[in-house]
């Protein structure tokens, strides 16, 4: 492995190091933070800002604990207490754990997979800035003097326009931004894990950490898209008067709960599964032994990822859902214990008899096991319907999920921080301070949260700003408050440790722990391009492998050799087959620039402008955002030229293509991700549509006649027909028939425009609006989204047509994949249109 550890010895096949470094060096100066697309600084940004939010949320928790220390306390007013628990919960859930994990993943995943960056570096940058803007919008409510008091779960009608104001609108939009950041990172993570691994890294050799991240990525996309759709609906209720959740106009508050928990439950596992990835990375290294029952642990992770989507109703056991439905969710919730059980026993078996050194990472792991097992067991308890009827929404629940989230997620995060710190800044954290921090945190945590089980059982509901002394809970509450301060002290010790050690910490070598995965094979801190030569991988534990000569495979070796300081003038990475890890292609990553961060900023300002009724500002900014997104997605012609120039030699050396289509190219995966996200969003909307119908006495609601079939039929017919010229253009493109390509693309554009015109001509003649009732809201929202998507598809076609005419030299290179993704998106729209027609126009007649 020594060949991969920072500048390799000049071999005859290696490229020019200086040129290579220049390509991978990020931008300089203060503005580099806005222009960078490197996983390192972006990951750092995610982590830094999320920790700031964490400290704020922790402070709020302490204030709440002071208020609850004694009964009938008046330290905080009810208003302030409700604001604090809302912001504490939503900050921790939306702005701390997930972004923190995303940051850490962004930094660690590429070196572990043996690649140079994440799959969509521009998206990383956009995600980080949208997350930060979302967080600032969350906290904007403090400046507005209207902090939301709706809880992190925001149940309507309490969170609806009747009971809340501008602060909640900001909160919802901030949440929307954080979700968009999440979805994009999720897609990026999935594609990175599946496709841009080191050559030879088959699924069998992929580190467990990457497995957990892969599952997490899929979950993020599914869960956050659902929440994004739901928050969009609630935000529309606030801003334009739709009625999705207003019970007085046909809306259903319970619909929100279904959508929210379809996100909310997986969310817990989205945090927990990467945490198990940390544990599964650290335990084998300290045990100096590969993880026992590796295959079973992978199964457990996948099982957990899937099952977590089948549990949402267990947050709704007291809402009057049929018992039959609820019982299924009890069964599913119980099964998740098996997924946890497999992992816990695998860790114990791995540690068995190895007498691991009790260094700080290992201490946090031990603390994790203690707390998590307890929290997991109480989790099984609350899945039991009758018992949940008692403890639901009590402090028992508060105790349970803090055991799971602090013990199960934060402790592994801290273990990871102590373990991987050398990779982040090249220095070790202080062991002494780490041990103090661990014991203070561990003891403080249990003192703070164990009594809460009792409080709940003895009848203390959640989210109360005070409680009468007659409940006899003063003692427990006082103990909990003392524990909370101890816990806070413990965390602060680690924060101090990080700050002090960043300057004075002991310098770490490449591999201070004797790790088994690829990141330990390269220098600490991680170099910008990660690997000067992308390493060949023949083992699940590449850094432990001593003799791998007998397994060498020529294809893998050749691909690896071709990447030694190369490509020199553009950011290139290897793409592999999902299943067997054999190299497939060399792909360019984007060049980077200000466009993503500027787009994020403009979207933020635009949405704030819209909320504050500064419509002109909003319109200008949304236009600027659109322009910068186009700039971001537009192929960089000079960069493409460099790629075209060096590609033939590289293809010769590596035996791999550079300009590819289909699953061997990154844009293809991007569009597949987008299509999946949009499909999911429409599935959520269709579900909501039928849910409202199920609980409405009449459908359509409020005497609205069933929709006309003819006019919309013409509109959606036009959309479906527009797939034909697209198909024609694609065929002609393959054959190189210039005018037919143009004709096909223009035909598509015209039919798309005709669809939008016909649709709005029909909508304009309707008697009801989106304000009439929930049916009207649903009806219009689906049409609006559909026409918006067609607009996006038309922009893609326009861009393609422009490049086809103006950059003919690229027709053989990057343009085929551009043509492919444009066509895929358009076919998808045609099919989606048929589905929309079926659901919105035909189904009311059934």
């Amino acid at each position: 492995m020594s060949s991969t550890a920072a500048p390799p010895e000049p071999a005859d096949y290696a490229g020019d190091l200086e040129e290579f470094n220049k390509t991978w060096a990020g931008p300089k100066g203060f503005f580099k933070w806005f222009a960078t697309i490197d996983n390192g600084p972006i990951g750092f940004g995610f982590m830094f800002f999320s920790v700031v939010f964490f400290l704020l949320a922790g402070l709020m928790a302490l204030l709440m604990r002071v208020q609850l220390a004694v009964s009938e306390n008046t330290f905080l007013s009810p208003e302030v207490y409700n604001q604090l628990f809302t912001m504490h919960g939503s900050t921790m859930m939306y702005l701390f754990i997930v972004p923190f994990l995303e940051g850490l993943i962004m930094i660690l995943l590429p070196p572990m997979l043996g690649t140079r960056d994440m799959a969509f570096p521009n998206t990383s940058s956009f995600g980080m800035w949208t997350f930060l803007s979302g967080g600032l919008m969350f906290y904007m409510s403090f400046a507005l003097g209207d902090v939301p008091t709706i809880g992190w779960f925001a149940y309507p009608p309490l969170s609806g326009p009747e009971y809340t104001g501008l602060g909640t609108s900001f909160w919802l939009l901030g949440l929307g931004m954080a979700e968009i950041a999440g979805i994009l990172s999720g897609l990026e993570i999935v594609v990175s894990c599946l496709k841009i691994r080191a050559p030879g890294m088959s699924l069998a050799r992929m580190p467990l950490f990457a497995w957990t991240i892969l599952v997490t990525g899929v979950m993020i996309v599914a869960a956050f898209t659902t929440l994004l759709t739901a928050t969009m609906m609630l935000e529309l209720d606030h801003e334009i008067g739709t009625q999705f959740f207003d019970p007085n106009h046909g809306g259903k508050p319970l619909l929100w709960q279904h959508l929210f928990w379809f996100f909310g439950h997986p969310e817990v596992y989205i945090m927990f599964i990467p945490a198990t990835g940390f544990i599964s990375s650290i335990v084998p290294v300290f045990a100096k032994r590969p993880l026992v029952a590796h295959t079973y642990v992978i199964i457990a992770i996948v099982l957990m990822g899937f099952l977590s989507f089948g549990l949402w109703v267990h947050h709704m056991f007291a809402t009057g859902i049929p018992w039959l439905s609820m019982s299924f969710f009890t069964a599913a919730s119980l099964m998740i214990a098996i997924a946890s059980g497999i992992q816990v026993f695998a860790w114990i078996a791995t540690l068995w008899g190895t007498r691991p050194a009790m260094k700080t990472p290992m201490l946090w792991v031990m603390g994790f096991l203690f707390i998590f097992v307890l929290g997991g067991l109480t989790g099984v308890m609350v899945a039991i319907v009758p018992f949940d009827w008692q403890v639901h929404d009590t402090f028992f629940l508060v105790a349970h999920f803090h055991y799971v989230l602090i013990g199960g997620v934060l402790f592994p995060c801290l273990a990871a921080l102590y373990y991987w710190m050398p990779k982040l800044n090249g220095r070790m954290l202080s062991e002494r301070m780490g041990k103090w921090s661990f014991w203070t945190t561990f003891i403080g945590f249990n003192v703070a949260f164990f009594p809460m089980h009792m409080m709940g059982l003895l009848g203390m509901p959640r989210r109360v700003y005070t409680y009468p002394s007659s409940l006899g809970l003063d003692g427990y509450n006082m103990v909990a408050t003392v524990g909370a301060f101890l816990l806070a002290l413990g965390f602060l010790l680690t924060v101090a440790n990080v700050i002090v050690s960043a300057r004075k910490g002991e310098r770490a070598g490449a591999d201070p722990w004797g790790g088994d995965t690829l990141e330990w094979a390269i220098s600490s801190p991680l170099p910008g391009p990660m690997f000067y030569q992308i390493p060949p991988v023949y083992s699940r534990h590449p850094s432990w492998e001593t003799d791998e000569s007998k397994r060498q495979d020529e294809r893998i070796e050749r691909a690896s050799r071709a990447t030694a300081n190369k490509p020199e003038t553009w950011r290139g990475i290897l793409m592999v087959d999902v299943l067997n890890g054999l190299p497939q292609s060399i792909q360019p990553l984007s060049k980077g620039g200000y466009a993503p961060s500027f787009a994020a900023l403009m979207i933020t300002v635009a949405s704030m402008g819209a909320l504050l009724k500064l419509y002109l500002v909003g319109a200008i900014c949304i236009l600027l955002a659109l322009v910068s997104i186009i700039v971001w997605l537009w192929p960089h012609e000079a960069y493409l030229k460099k790629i075209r120039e060096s590609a033939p030699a590289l293809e010769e050396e590596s035996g791999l293509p550079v300009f590819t289509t289909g699953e061997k190219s990154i844009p293809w995966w991007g569009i597949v991700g987008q299509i999946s996200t949009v499909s999911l969003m429409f599935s959520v909307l269709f579900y909501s549509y039928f849910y409202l119908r199920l609980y409405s006495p009449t459908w359509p609601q409020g005497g609205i006649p069933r929709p006309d079939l003819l006019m919309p039929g013409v509109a959606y017919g036009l959309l479906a027909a527009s797939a034909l010229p697209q198909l024609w253009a694609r065929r002609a493109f393959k054959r190189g028939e210039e005018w037919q390509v143009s004709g096909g693309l223009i035909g598509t554009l015209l039919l798309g425009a005709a669809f939008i015109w016909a649709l709005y001509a029909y909508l304009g003649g309707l008697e009801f609006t989106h304000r009439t009732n929930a049916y009207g809201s649903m009806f219009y929202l689906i049409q609006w989204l559909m026409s918006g998507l067609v607009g996006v598809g038309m922009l893609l076609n326009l861009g393609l047509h422009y490049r086809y005419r103006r950059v003919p030299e690229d027709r053989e290179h990057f343009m085929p994949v551009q043509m492919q993704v444009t066509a895929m998106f358009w076919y998808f729209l045609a099919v989606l249109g048929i589905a929309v027609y079926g659901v919105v126009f035909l189904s009311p007649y059934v």
Partner: protein
Amino acid sequence: MTETMPPSLKRGVGRILRARGVWAVPALGAAFLLGGCEGDRIQSTLHPASEAAAKIAWLWWVMCGAFTAVFLLVMVLLLLGVYRRPSGEGTGPPLGGTRFVILGGIAMPTVILLGLLIASLETTVALRLPEKQTLTVEVIGHRWWWEVRYPDQNIVTANEIQIPTGVPVRLVLKSADVIHSFWVPRLNGKMDMIPGHTNTFWIAAEKPGEYRGQCAEYCGLQHAKMAFYVVALPPEAFRAWVAERQTPRPAPEAFLPGQEVFMQAGCKNCHTVRGTAAVGRVGPDLTHLGSRISLGAGEIPNTPGHLGGWIGNSQRIKPGNLMPRSFLAPEELHALVRYLEAPK
């Protein structure tokens, strides 16, 4: 399980069990669980006063016992695994590793979870609303108080539910504004009250008494102070209570000045007093206010002094509640309190 344990593991378990002081842990735990005096447990799920609550409490104790055992087992294995000095032969993972994981991570949980699922389903089915019901009560959640209606008896009250002992009472749960949740821990679990949606639920009390309940779904500013009492009466006493509520008695003349104040100070816009012109439905029905246990939805005891304070400025007692301050002269306030507390 013990037969399959490797000898080294058996030795280790034995050593831990023989260690002095280990038994103090469960003993301390039990003390912690049952701490506090019985009199304080007015809202405890562990002090059931009905068959339904007792069934759930039993489920808790079973799970508590079983899971304590599981937890201790896992912790013992973990500590043995990490700290045991490997004795020559036993350096590998136990039972070859994979077998250990299958046994501990799949087989053991399956057995426990299967039992638990069956216990859960049995208990759920057993908590079904019994066939014979004598009484239906409609409870409507408001921000932040409880409207209680007896549709068959034509009685309306607030923040207090009178029920006869020994029979199941069917509850029809609704909400007038946001989501609330009905919960009397000593009598049964909880059930949400959702606007635009009706839930049915039931409670029963074995013995006469007052059982405190509280809103369990966050419902805004004063969610913390939205309590109520279920008052279980022996069947005869309950019949008497119903009869008394059903015979309207005009207020004796001595209280008429108070009634005057009530009508003129704006109270009638929000409150109802049966048999008078006051038919407001925003706030609680005050017809029989005098006989209630508490004021402000379980917040303060119902005494003339507290009532005067509440009318004068309820915002000091329950900030943010929807009742505005009143500015009555002392003698008007006095008359009003006397009128409201009078038996009607």
